[in-house]
């Protein structure tokens, strides 16, 4: 922790360092003059200009200047804080200055580079920016970063393929891991599968392997037939209550992975589903396990109960399942006639497309149907309109297999509430960001893997399990967690202003605001990310934010406007 | 008067005023001021009595003797007395008491008698303000040296 050089009575002493950035800035702006200008600004006691402020020599200059001129604010006018702020902050810290007393002025990306052709105007702009930076710096306050201990253990909810892999991975990294499964056995949907695409491995084999590893792992505690009943706390320090057959178990973990999987849809009232001769693809797996098929005419219908108005999503793996199972049948009984009625075949990647090709070669018939003209299932034949022929085709069947999607578990809502995380419209769990944080939740320390988020196949489940484990380890591998200092808080002296309207509580995307047992609003510092929405919304203006205070922002506005308001 | 006490009186002096309020009108009026969140100076301390008729002149004299800086007595408006005629009796009583007190050299500004009805929250606040002003205008109660 850096020493806080600033004290209440100490006058503000600002040092301004203007960077030439080679010719990037210096080629457009007269940096020397800017430094001179900066020296004229209130509270500025030192200013300098360097060729490269971020180079070793520049950094040394800053450090020396802090020492020599007893600076308690440092401003660097150069490139963008987005890349260079951490560097300068650490230099300040090295010189014994709180890192939040550093301020950045961007005169390269947002000045010299974009106004090359108007150097005079750019110069004026740079002056303004420096003036604003100085005004802001005057109002800066030293902040403490908050440090919380991290419990080096994890909870994985769901003992399917994704959860087991996540647990195993975490354990291997040395973290105590708790694996909670609501069913009697681990394995999830793996239990109901026969062979797996694309390597045609037997599901039970895979399961045996991984389950064996899990059970043998002393670092993993497995709770089967168990439900999560409560979750308190926050990243690094979750307190979880598990109910196993009526017994309550309490554990403390630093991170949580949600790998609850999903449930296959039973297509009640669709295509004459009866569970006997008209079954689902999942049910077919069971039939295939101890091959008992003596039928020759088999028809499969894809996209049953999905990609429709009720479920506007593709279940991702059903095309592959159908192909795989069709090929298995063909393998056992080459005389079998198999027709797959599909809307679009989704076989992405090399291995999967290969599968598709093999299926076609093996004589399986693929017939496209239109969603507005779905196949009509009769007693032992199917009528289907073929777009290319322009006519209806009749296909006899002895076994009809319906490819149904995975749907969200019924208890997702309950778990989401416990974790204070969001669900999307189909009640799958919603990740923090679809591209950038696909296995994170907005809530820190909680991660997601597998079909709980979206229907995925085994391969993807396993990689997501690893991914989530890796994300969790970024937290767990630290003894302590340093949390952003520029966060919102409810100052003691403003507590009386707060009426508890809960506006902030509802707006906070990180659930960092709650009401404590005294019915008072409380901001959990470690959860706050400092976005400031609560601050800008609080009707009583009781909540404040550090480092982006109203005073700081207003001082910049005043500096630019040039008028000092009372 | 010593210099020290002079000094003390020049700094922010908060007069202490005792208020005798009848339960039915003035006390209710004071409550209404509260319900309506009408702000007034916090110098008064209220003693609730059933009726202004109950206020023995002695209470007033004792209050001054014990060093309260001012007195506020407030009852129902004439005719509104919950006990039919208590406030009339009080009015007569205080008219005489007031003369007596003035005769004794007590500044009349310390003695404030008034009526406040249950609907007059605003008026109550105003009267407290006025009373505090009155008392402030004559300074701390020095006639009686007795301090607590």
């Amino acid at each position, binding site marked *: 922790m850096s020493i806080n050089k600033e004290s209440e009575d100490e006058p503000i002493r600002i040092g301004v360092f203007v960077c030439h950035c080679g010719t990037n800035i210096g080629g457009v702006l007269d940096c020397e003059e800017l430094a001179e200008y900066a020296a004229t600004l209130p509270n500025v006691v030192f200013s300098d200009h360097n060729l490269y402020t971020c180079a070793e020599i520049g950094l040394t200059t800053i450090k020396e200047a802090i020492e020599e001129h007893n600076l308690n604010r440092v401003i660097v006018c150069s490139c963008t804080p987005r890349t260079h702020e951490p560097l300068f902050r650490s230099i300040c810290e090295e010189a014994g200055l709180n890192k939040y007393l550093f301020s950045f002025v961007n005169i390269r990306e947002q000045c010299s580079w974009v106004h090359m052709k108007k150097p005079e105007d750019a110069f004026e702009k740079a002056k303004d920016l420096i003036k604003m930076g100085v005004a802001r710096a005057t109002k800066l306050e030293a902040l403490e970063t908050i440090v919380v201990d991290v419990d080096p253990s994890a909870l994985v909810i769901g003992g399917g393929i994704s959860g087991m892999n996540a647990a195993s991975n975490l354990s291997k990294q040395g973290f105590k891991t708790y694996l909670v499964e609501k069913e009697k056995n681990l394995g999830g949907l793996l239990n109901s599968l026969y062979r797996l695409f694309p390597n045609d491995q037997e599901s039970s084999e895979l399961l045996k392997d991984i389950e064996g590893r899990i059970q043998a792992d002393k670092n993993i505690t497995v709770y089967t037939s168990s439900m999560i009943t409560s979750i308190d706390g926050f990243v690094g320090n979750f307190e979880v209550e598990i109910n196993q057959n009526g017994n309550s178990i309490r554990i403390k973990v630093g991170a949580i992975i949600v790998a609850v999987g999903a449930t296959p849809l039973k297509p009640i009232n669709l295509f004459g589903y009866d569970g006997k001769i008209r079954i689902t693809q999942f049910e077919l797996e069971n039939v295939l396990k101890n091959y008992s098929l003596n039928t020759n005419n088999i028809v499969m219908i894809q996209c049953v109960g999905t990609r429709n108005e009720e479920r506007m999503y593709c279940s991702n793996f059903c095309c592959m399942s159908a192909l795989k199972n069709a090929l298995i049948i063909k393998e056992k009984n080459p005389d079998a006639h198999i027709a797959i009625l599909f809307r679009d075949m989704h076989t992405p990647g090399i291995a999967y497309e290969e599968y598709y090709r093999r299926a076609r070669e093996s004589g399986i018939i693929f017939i496209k149907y239109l969603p507005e003209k779905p196949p009509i299932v009769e007693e032992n034949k199917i009528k289907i309109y073929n777009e290319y022929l322009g006519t209806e085709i009749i296909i006899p069947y002895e076994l009809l297999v319906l490819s149904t999607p995975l749907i969200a578990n019924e208890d997702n809502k309950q778990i989401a509430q416990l974790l204070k995380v969001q669900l999307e419209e189909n009640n799958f769990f919603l990740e923090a960001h679809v591209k950038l944080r696909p296995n994170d939740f907005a809530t820190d320390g909680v991660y997601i893997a597998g079909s709980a988020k979206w229907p995925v196949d085994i391969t993807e489940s396993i990689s997501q399990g690893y991914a989530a484990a890796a994300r969790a380890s970024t937290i767990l591998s630290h003894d302590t967690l340093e949390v952003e200092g520029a966060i919102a808080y409810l100052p003691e002296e403003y507590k*009386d202003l707060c*009426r*508890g*309207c*809960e506006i902030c509580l509802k707006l906070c995307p990180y659930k960092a605001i709650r009401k404590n047992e005294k*019915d008072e609003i409380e901001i959990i510092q470690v959860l706050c990310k400092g976005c400031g929405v609560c601050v800008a919304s609080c*009707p009583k203006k009781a909540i404040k934010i550090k480092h982006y205070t109203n005073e700081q922002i207003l001082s910049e506005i005043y500096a630019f406007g040039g008028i000092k308001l009372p | 008067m010593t210099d020290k006490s002079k000094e003390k009186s020049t700094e922010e002096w*908060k007069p*202490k005023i005792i208020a005798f309020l009848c*339960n*039915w*009108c003035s*006390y*209710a009026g004071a*409550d*209404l*001021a*509260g*319900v*309506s*969140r*009408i*702000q*007034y*100076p*916090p110098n008064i*301390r*209220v*003693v*609730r*009595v*059933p*009726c202004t*008729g*109950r*206020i*023995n*002149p*002695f*209470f007033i004299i004792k*209050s001054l003797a*014990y060093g*309260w800086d001012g007195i506020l007595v407030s009852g129902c*408006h004439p005719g*509104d007395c*919950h*006990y*039919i*005629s*208590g406030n009339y*009796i*009080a009015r007569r*009583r205080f008219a005489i008491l007031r003369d007596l007190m003035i005769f004794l050299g007590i500044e009349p500004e310390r003695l404030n008698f008034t009526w406040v*009805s*249950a*609907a*007059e*929250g*605003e008026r109550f606040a105003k009267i407290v303000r006025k009373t505090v002003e009155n008392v402030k205008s004559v300074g701390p109660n020095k006639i009686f040296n007795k301090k*607590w």
Partner: protein
Amino acid sequence: MNKVGAVLVVGAGIGGSQVSLDLAESGYKVYLVEKSTSIGGVMAQLDKTFPTNDCAMCIISPKLVETGRHHNIDLIINADIREASGDAGNFTIKLTKRALYVNQEKCTGCGVCGQECPIEAIDTFNEGLSMCKATSVKYPQAVPLVYYINLEKCIGCGICYGVCKAKAVEYDQTDREIEINVGAVILAPGFDEFEPDSIKEYGYSKYRNVVTSIEFERILSASGPFAGKVLRLSDGDIPRKIAFLQCIGSRDMKRGQPYCSSVCCMYTAKEAVIAKEHFDVINPTIFCMDVRAYGKDFDKYIERAKNQYGVRYIKNRIASILEMPETKDLKISYETEDGKIVEEIFNMLVLSVGLNPPKDAKKIADVFNINLNEYNFCETNSFNPIQTSRPGIFVCGAFQGPKDIPETVTQASAAAGAVNVLLSEVKNTLITKKELPEEIDVRGQPPRIGVFICHCGINIGGYVDVPAVTEYANKLPNVVMADRNLYTCSADTQTIIKEKIKEYNLNRVIVASCTPRTHEPLFQETIREAGLNRYLFQMTNIRDQCSWVHMHEPENATEKAKDLVRMAVNKARRIFPLQRMTLDVTKNVLVIGGGITGMVAALDLAQQGFETYLVEREKELGGIAREIYSTLEGDNVQEFLSDLIKKVKTQENLNLYTEANIEAIDGYVGNFHTSLTYGDKKIPVEFDHGVVIVATGANEYIPTEYQYGEDPRIIRQSELEEKIYKSPNELKDVKSIVMIQCVGSRNEEHPYCSKMCCAEAIKNALKIKELNPEINITILFRDIRTYGFKEKYYQKARQAGVLFIQFNDNQEPEVKIENGNLNIIVKKPDVGDISIKADLLALSVGIVSSRDEKEELAMQLKVPLNDDNFFLEAHVKLRPVDFATEGVFVAGLAHAPKPIEDCISQAKATVSRACTILSKDKIEAEGKIARIDPTRCTGCGLCVLNCAYNAIELQEDRRFGTIAVINEALCKGCGACSGNCRCSAIDILGFTGEQIFAMIMGRE
């Protein structure tokens, strides 16, 4: 069929509240159903009330608090009755309690929800003159003090839920169906004001400075939008000239209602007077047709308005109103008395709107299956004005016909009286009585005080440093524990208080929280349940009178709170248990006066099984009614009277003494003793009784003016009535009859209106016209006061050709007998003198009461007479049939002149009031009463004079000589005696000098 000892009261205005309290006190379970969210009705909206200019809120709020807290009254707010089935004695009522979205039990009324609500709505209590929030309370002093969400306005932002520390906001509340079983129903839904939008000429809602009288009432009110400043709406200036227009929507066949709304003349005069009182620059002018100041002391009020306040009366309807575009003043043109049209500019215009039946009158009639009259008010008859067309369902207040507060309160009690008669055998069957533990004897123990300090959510805790105050309290002498609570009034805190009393062996309890006016009884009940005497409690107000009013000075507020707590502790150290004296009640009644009033009261009471003594001075029963044959409405009075007399004579439990003379009445409430002699033989008799009803009536004035008695053609109205009914032949040759009104009324000697003479004249005029339409009838009048539905007959009389000529107050008609011709001359300044030849002159004489007759009784009962020698009730508005002396009641003409239906109402009202005492085996007196130190009393008797309740007497004492003695049963503990006692011999328990000195002294 089993009768049920419970009553449904519909509507919780002043009438509904009165009836509920009466019945609850008489031993019935009461369901008081109110359609809005708070009780109090229109009276709570009023600034002052006529004729006493009492502050409406001052006098109604204690009553409302009592109604809200009474353990026998189940208050159901925000509810509508849907269905009423069954018969008298046993009704099943289905009602819907609409959702408030706030839990009534949990809401502490702190108001934070309203403050934080971002949505504004129109404040209907202030008649739209100000704004309130979508989450609001009806008015600040509302009972019950419960907030509710106005669903029409609420956008559902949920802020109130968050800010409510009591967690009382419940958005998922739904309307609730309730079924109750009652023996009787009383309808008291009140009235709705006439809405003057429909009459375009008045410019209401078009011209900003035209307001209705109810709006003006809120403008006048100290708690109204302008805090009592009289300002006009266009620019907020004080209007120098205000014009009041009377009869807006009343007495208006075409555009409003044909009847007279009864109260407008008086409330207009009151509003004019109060406006003038507020700002002397205001000059009120009242435009009216007649001034109908017919009630007790009303005329005096009008005179005061005119003479003392300079209120200008112009007896004309106006011709037009125009707004001046620049100033927004109003130009009014009207006809002067001499027929000229003049224009005058006023700054503001107040429309005295009439009283309409409640908007949902038809619905009420449908639900309860009762008849409405032609104006959609509840149908009743003259001899039973509280009985609806369906047995077991009664009515009171303005739903029966427009009326003022005293008449409403009277009728409310009358309806309660009727219920008492109907349900007397199931009395006391459904009321609850709490079993309480024996009181702990704390005598000789040093005070062990427990202090409970309330955060009141954030209401106190947000401004006052409650922990600091608690710590401070803990250090005070004799305080053995001090604790603080989020809500001290919540149910769980009551349990805590009880536990602490046990744990710490407390013998004094202090609560520092809100106002004792509403919450003291609750805490007293709690400590009583824990075995402590309820007077071992002290309360100090650190919310309404501290945190709320010093929000910006938390430090000073904390200091004040500490002082207040210390003062309470100092007092608590000196308080001691008090006992409420209980008195046995003799369940007998003395009714003095055997007129209609007395007989109705006696009969109703005797029917309930109370031993009743009816005492009549004369030989015959019936009093003044013997000379009345018909009411204006055409009911046969003689038939009613003889029927009544027959019933009285045969009624069980009713002891009748005629030709009686009361020798002495001793004692006090519950325990009177009377001795009298009766019959021509002057047989003495003595008996005990619990209450007294005074119904001694009054007399017809025997005129000395207009040469009465000098000519057989000059007769009184009652003599004319006798002729009409007994010997109509005498009228055969009569061609012209002149009637003169206000003979012996409204003059210096009798400055009051006799209320019934206008009706009498019109009644006789109509009857004569019926007998012979050819007879010319001229009525000379000052104001025609056919108030209420009687207006109909005034219209009828005019239609029948009766000529009405107004004479000025100071220019009475002259009677000239020349050459045997009877001529009556009326002076009209505009048209000159009019001379009318008459064959008969009927003088409408007033009612007078003679001091000689009344004084003795007044002395015996220690009750007062007013200047006009009528008995003076305890409170004009709220206790119209009570005397200040408990257990003594007044009804009928003894109280003031009034027609038969009013007398009957009052008679029944006294029945109910009497029942509140007679229904109890024991009555509990007040605990905080005066106590005399006989060693200091000099027997000067000043206290006797000061006591408004006749609770002090001078008595000879063996040891101390002549000393004052307090009758504990009568003392109300006001302390007027104590404050005036020159020897400090009297102290008030609960507010002793020592206790108050302790509060004064205790500053460190």
